[in-house]
């Protein structure tokens, strides 16, 4: 069989089911690939070789015994380090959690384990998922497989880079303002933020609870659908979990791949284009619209006038909720404890010393901003006003979805930038997420898929947004565009990525 690491999860699942390959072989091939390229890419913070192979052996034995297995059983997966995994180190990219071994699994990890997917390891990320470049990880940068001098996006740069570098066919991401979709865009991979509440948040180390959502990171739209169906569904341990069945996403992806979008209305969001968008990004976007029209879709323009205020609202809500969520890192029950070098060793002073030493620059920046926004006298003016903008953005979405079944835009305004380019300019860094943030504020689902290379030879992403609870539309339209694009390219976009040096 040809290189196992180049296969999609769906292809691997079919080979496994047919008995053409074992899960041990598939898992070992990916572990070998990690050993060969991850010195350069640094997508992983921890590689769990032994437990991955143990799972693979177990699945092979159960398959041999004729057991009825989940379709993805035996297909390996990487998990973002913000998701707790029992027995595997979980740091969320922060020094304050260095060495912490969680005593429990996140619900989505329980589902992955129950389905028999070997967990290859934990992927790098911006500390506590705060960032758009993975440069804010306390454990070093992840490098973009397309150009090792450039960022892989963030916060989930590790998951996206792992999938783009063929170190894993599947990965888990989390998306608070674009942390699944923007890394997908800049690495030429697919990422989906489900409807808020569609995937349990139990066991995710929370940044902003009203925005956080876990989802799939893959190389194909169908693979995302397969993984989304596995991790989705109601969880009584998450009080914001939607108590309703997961939509039929795999069927939607398969239907979309047939290429017929007759009767589908695609709305182009006027406010998510033009100034600030790189020329190559805009050009690929226009070409993709033509492909959608050729598939039978009706393309209309819609206006969402309050999207221009989304970034400002986000940068009040997110730090406010993060400052509250991160109060638990107090040096008392888990992770780092630092005692003050002089004066009395009291709990309060230990907490301040621990957080001063354990948090990185961006986390300090956001916690302090959030504390300020929530402090006496400011709450209504800041957090309260931002929540009103959230209402206005929801109204914009509601009006737009009257005219269109899905909304589309470029996922990110630019391709991957070089390390350090935006590190000292928080506002420039935050602008990466200008097109992805509205979905988080409104709770609607979004998908990014690669739609070509810009003038600089780097990948560009195409974003599709659907109404809440209509995630299946993302997969139908996404799979249709993917198949039309691959017809033009003659194969997947990652075939055009430079070969990584094997070490």
């Amino acid at each position, binding site marked *: 069989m040809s290189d196992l690491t180049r296969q999609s999860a769906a292809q691997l699942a079919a080979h496994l089911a047919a008995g053409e390959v074992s899960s041990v072989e598939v898992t070992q091939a990916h572990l070998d690939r990690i050993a060969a390229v991850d010195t350069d890419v640094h997508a992983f913070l921890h590689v769990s070789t032994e437990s991955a192979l143990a799972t693979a052996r177990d699945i092979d034995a159960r398959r041999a015994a004729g057991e009825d297995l989940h379709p993805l059983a035996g297909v390996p997966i990487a998990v973002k380090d913000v998701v707790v995994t029992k027995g595997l180190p979980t740091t969320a990219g922060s020094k304050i959690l260095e060495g912490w071994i969680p005593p429990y699994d996140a619900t989505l990890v329980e589902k992955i384990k129950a389905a028999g997917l070997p967990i290859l390891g934990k992927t790098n990320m911006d500390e506590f998922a705060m960032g758009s470049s993975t440069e804010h990880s306390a454990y070093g940068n992840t490098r973009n497989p397309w150009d090792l001098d450039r960022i892989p996006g963030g916060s989930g740069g590790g998951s996206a880079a792992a999938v783009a570098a063929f170190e894993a066919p599947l990965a888990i991401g989390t998306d608070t303002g674009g942390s699944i979709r923007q890394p997908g865009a800049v690495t030429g991979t697919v990422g989906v933020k489900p409807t808020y509440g569609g995937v349990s948040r139990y066991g995710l180390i929370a940044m902003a609870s009203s925005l956080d959502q876990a989802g799939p990171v893959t190389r194909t739209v169908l693979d995302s659908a397969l993984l989304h169906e596995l991790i989705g569904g109601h969880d009584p341990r998450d009080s914001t979990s939607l108590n309703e069945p997961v939509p039929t996403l795999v069927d939607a992806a398969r239907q979309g791949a047939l290429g017929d979008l007759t009767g589908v209305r695609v709305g182009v969001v006027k406010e998510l284009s033009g100034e600030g968008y790189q020329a190559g990004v805009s050009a690929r976007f226009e070409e993709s619209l033509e492909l959608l029209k050729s598939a039978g879709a009706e393309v209309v323009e819609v206006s969402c006038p309050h999207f221009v205020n989304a970034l400002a609202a986000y940068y009040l809500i997110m730090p406010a909720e993060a400052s509250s969520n991160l109060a638990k890192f107090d040096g008392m029950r888990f992770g780092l404890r630092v005692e003050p070098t002089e004066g009395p060793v009291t709990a309060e002073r230990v907490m301040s010393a621990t957080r001063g030493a354990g948090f990185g620059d961006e986390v300090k920046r956001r916690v302090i901003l959030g504390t300020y926004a929530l402090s006496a006298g400011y709450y209504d003016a800041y957090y309260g006003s931002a929540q009103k903008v959230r209402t206005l953005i929801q109204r914009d979405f509601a009006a737009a979805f009257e005219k269109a079944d899905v909304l589309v835009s470029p996922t990110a305004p630019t391709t991957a930038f070089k390390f350090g380019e935006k590190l000292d300019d928080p506002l420039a860094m935050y602008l990466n997420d200008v097109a992805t943030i509205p979905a988080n504020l409104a*709770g609607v689902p979004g998908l990014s898929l690669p739609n070509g290379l810009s003038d600089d030879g780097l990948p560009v992403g195409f974003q599709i947004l659907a109404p809440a609870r209509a995630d299946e539309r993302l997969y139908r339209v996404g799979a249709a565009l993917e198949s039309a694009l691959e017809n033009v390219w003659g194969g997947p976009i990652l075939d055009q990525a430079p070969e990584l040096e094997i070490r």
Partner: protein
Amino acid sequence: MSTLSRDEVARVAALARIDLTPEELDRLAGELVVIVDAIAEVSAVATPDVPATSHPLPLSNVFRDDVPVAPLDVDEIMASAPASEDGRFLVPQILGEDS
């Protein structure tokens, strides 16, 4: 619109229980001003007639059945604690902080 002075950053950092070095205070005071400016924009559109949205898809009366479930393993929890004694977290002095 207010800006964040160095003293204000120091006050808020104390509220947030984060020790900052003098260099960090200087840098944050400069950087946070940029972000706080964004607040003016939000205030301009957040008129009194607009209701606030605290949660994207509001759910109400979310309860689970009141049945006991197995707790986490105490030894596993304590294995990752900074300090413990007799199966409990060992923490610094918490009373008499003003003394």
